[in-house]
């Protein structure tokens, strides 16, 4: 069977999983939906591996395969087909997505147990994986847009999973609206490109693009900028990022899967896939790189100040995606995708560990209340440390190799990119600091009451379940989190999943050691064969220099964090006082939410208000409808007076009419 057949199988497994779970949600007992979902994605992963093997069997020049099931419309000048593209880039992404998804499903089997919406969760999760795989395997803009929209919908469904929580539903709507803004950008961008190329197919578009667009042509730049809007909205980059921290309202596995490993990387994938177009429109690419750079810095600073543990990890995701976007926009394709893979591993691991920690805290997520869990949660602590070290870029973890691959490339490219490279190093210090801030605050120091309880072997439970953000009282029925809390130390599925990711985070970096093996770059080469930028890779020596600098920076960051939070615990408060305005800026997330509220939300709400009262009520109903009605009423009252009942009156009118008609015909002839 061809590689593309396995591509279709990869897509089929999750959607079949969704259907089975959705249809049997009342009848499947206990944890069965979870196992079915995990099996479905696991099967998908196996098919992805087979797809990889079959692709590697082929010679390098023939590794871009398409397979089309049917044409939607071939006669109206639009080649809309149900088509997938199996090439190294998509296979790489599919492997990462399906692999990490399998582990997260495994984790969720026990993490979400006890929740009344268990089956619904897994149905949604499978649906999400299906949409993401569809997005990645799409062979033309049509399926890409479809997958893009589905992913947004799945994200909304999963963020507002605990739908009776107002904060969750509001977050879901916010995420969805910003995603839709991105969708509009994506569709408009597609249109701009399509008007010139005349085809929706990826391979054909890329082949035709150099002939149809001259260097930096306006239409292409606008189209690519619109694509960037889509990418930025999906990947939570400035200024479309405000949804990501709020999306932490969803259950932790959702945060791990969607908002760390998969959905937010869709923007990176988009830019990587569209690299021929971006290389023809350097202006757009530069805008993208600057956006990524700004994001990584701003998110890094915010991560220093917030106290909700999931939000710290969310901002770190935003920051790392900033690196990736900066990388793909500048031309460091394999580096950025390498970081994508490594980031999927260690970020999912961090979220899983955070989930375990939050369970130990009986649902509370605030760093202010956590401390000293080292002895109570040893496995979680180990995973957190491994993930943190990978995130900070400490050798020899995967984050070190991948992040510094990008930064070395940027420095090699020179010019403005070198500045971005330096910004990247600054971001790396910030990353190390806030990551280890999180670890030191939660696991070191005096054990908090929950930690003490757990050391005695008793998992803390809240008397009355409350919303961790607002403190509202809840219950444990459907629509709210379940009554059970699961920690990794006690649940073997969680242990296996976290262990696997920890192992991958540790050794994953060895896939691309400069000068030793270039596995990822060589594997991805056929996808980027026509790219000028990809070919201009820095030398091994430059790579190693970058790696050493990166390691030094990471170690410095960890040391700083250690000093502030472990050695001298009061330092943080002192620093906060000294730099109070800065601190306020960071804690309030650089006031982006307030700005967007002022600039967009309020005017739109006001406009809606005006439309409702003036336009709809006054103009349409009273004036137009009411006015028309009263005019018709008056007219009919006038006409009614002709109905007298006198027979001869009617006859006279008839005769009058006849005379009139005859005169008309006489005159006109």
């Amino acid at each position, binding site marked *: 069977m061809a590689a593309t057949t396995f591509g279709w199988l990869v897509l089929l497994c999750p959607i079949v999983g969704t259907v089975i779970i959705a249809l049997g949600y009342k009848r499947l007992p206990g944890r069965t939906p979870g196992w079915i979902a995990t099996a479905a994605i696991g099967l998908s992963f196996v098919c992805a591996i087979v797809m990889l093997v079959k692709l590697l069997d082929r010679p390098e020049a023939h590794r871009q395969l398409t397979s089309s099931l049917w044409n939607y419309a071939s006669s109206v000048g639009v080649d809309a087909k149900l088509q997938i593209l199996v090439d190294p880039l998509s296979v790489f992404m599919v492997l990462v997505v399906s692999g990490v998804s399998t582990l997260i499903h495994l984790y969720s089997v026990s993490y979400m147990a006890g929740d009344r919406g268990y089956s619904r969760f897994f149905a949604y999760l499978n649906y999400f994986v299906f949409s993401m795989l569809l997005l990645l395997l799409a062979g033309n803009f049509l399926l890409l847009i479809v997958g893009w929209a589905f992913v947004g919908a799945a994200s909304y469904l999963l963020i507002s999973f605990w739908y009776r929580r107002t904060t969750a539903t509001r977050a879901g709507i916010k995420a969805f609206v910003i995603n839709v803004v991105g969708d509009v950008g994506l569709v408009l961008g597609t249109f701009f490109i399509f008007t010139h190329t005349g085809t929706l197919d990826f391979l054909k578009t890329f082949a035709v693009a150099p002939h149809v667009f001259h260097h930096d042509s306006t239409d292409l730049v606008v189209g690519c900028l619109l694509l960037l809007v889509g990418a930025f909205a999906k990947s939570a980059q400035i200024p479309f990022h405000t949804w990501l921290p709020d999306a932490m309202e969803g259950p932790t596995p959702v945060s791990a899967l969607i908002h760390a490993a998969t959905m937010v990387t869709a923007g990176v994938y988009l830019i990587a896939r569209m690299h021929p177009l971006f290389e023809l429109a350097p202006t757009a690419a530069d805008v993208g790189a600057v956006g990524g750079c700004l994001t990584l810095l701003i998110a890094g600073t915010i991560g220093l100040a917030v106290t909700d543990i999931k939000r710290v990890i969310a901002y770190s995701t935003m920051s790392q995606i900033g690196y990736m976007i900066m990388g793909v926009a500048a031309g460091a394709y394999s580096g950025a995708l390498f970081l994508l893979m490594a980031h999927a591993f260690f970020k999912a691991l961090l979220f899983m560990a955070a989930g375990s920690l939050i369970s130990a805290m009986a649902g509370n997520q605030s760093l202010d209340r956590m401390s000293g869990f080292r002895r109570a949660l040893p496995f979680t602590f180990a995973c957190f440390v491994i993930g943190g070290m990978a995130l900070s870029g400490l050798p020899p973890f995967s984050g070190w190799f991948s992040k510094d691959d990008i930064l070395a490339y940027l420095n090699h490219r020179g010019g403005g990119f070198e500045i971005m490279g330096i910004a990247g190093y600054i971001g790396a210090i910030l990353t190390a600091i806030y990551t280890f801030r999180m670890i030191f605050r939660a696991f070191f120091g005096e054990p908090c009451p929950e930690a003490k309880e757990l050391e005695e072997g008793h998992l803390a439970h809240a008397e009355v379940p409350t919303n961790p953000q607002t403190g509202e009282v809840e219950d444990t029925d459907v629509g709210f989190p379940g009554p059970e809390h699961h920690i990794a130390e006690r649940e073997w599925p969680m242990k296996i999943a976290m262990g696997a990711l920890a192992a991958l985070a540790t050794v994953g970096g060895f896939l691309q050691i400069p000068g030793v093996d270039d596995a990822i770059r060589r594997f991805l080469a056929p996808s980027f064969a026509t790219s000028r930028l990809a070919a201009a890779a820095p030398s091994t020596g430059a790579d190693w220099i970058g790696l050493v600098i990166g390691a030094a920076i990471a170690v410095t960051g960890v040391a700083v964090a250690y000093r502030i939070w472990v050695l001298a615990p009061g330092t943080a408060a002192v620093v906060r006082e000294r730099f109070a305005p800065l601190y306020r800026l960071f804690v309030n997330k650089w006031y982006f939410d307030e700005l967007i509220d002022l600039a967009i939300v309020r005017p739109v709400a006001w406009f809606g208000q005006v439309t409702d009262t003036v336009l709809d009520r006054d103009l349409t109903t009273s004036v137009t409808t009411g006015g028309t009605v009263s005019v018709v009423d008056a007219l009919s009252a006038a006409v*009614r007076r002709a*109905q*007298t*009942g*006198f*027979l*001869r009156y009617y*006859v006279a009118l008839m005769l009058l009419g006849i005379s009139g008609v005859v005169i008309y015909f006489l005159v006109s002839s």
Partner: protein
Amino acid sequence: MAIGWYLVVSALIFAIGAAGVLVRRSPLVILLCLELMLNAANLALVAFSRMWGGEDGQVFALIVMVVAACEVTVGLGLIVAMHRRRLPIDVDDLRELQG
């Protein structure tokens, strides 16, 4: 005589019938004037039939006669019913059927 003469006579009779419908108050006489108008039409039809040479006009005239007979039947039946119920046989007083 030229066909035009017959048509003029037909027009005159039609006009007289129309005047009668407008002027008289008894439904019976109004029906009679209606008959006048129908007959005028018949005359016109037969005249044209003579002009063209085909009997189609005459067939039409016969059908008109049938229709006139039916209409008279029903109209007179109405008048009888009105009389039975002691209603005034006066077109100006019977005007509840408006519109």
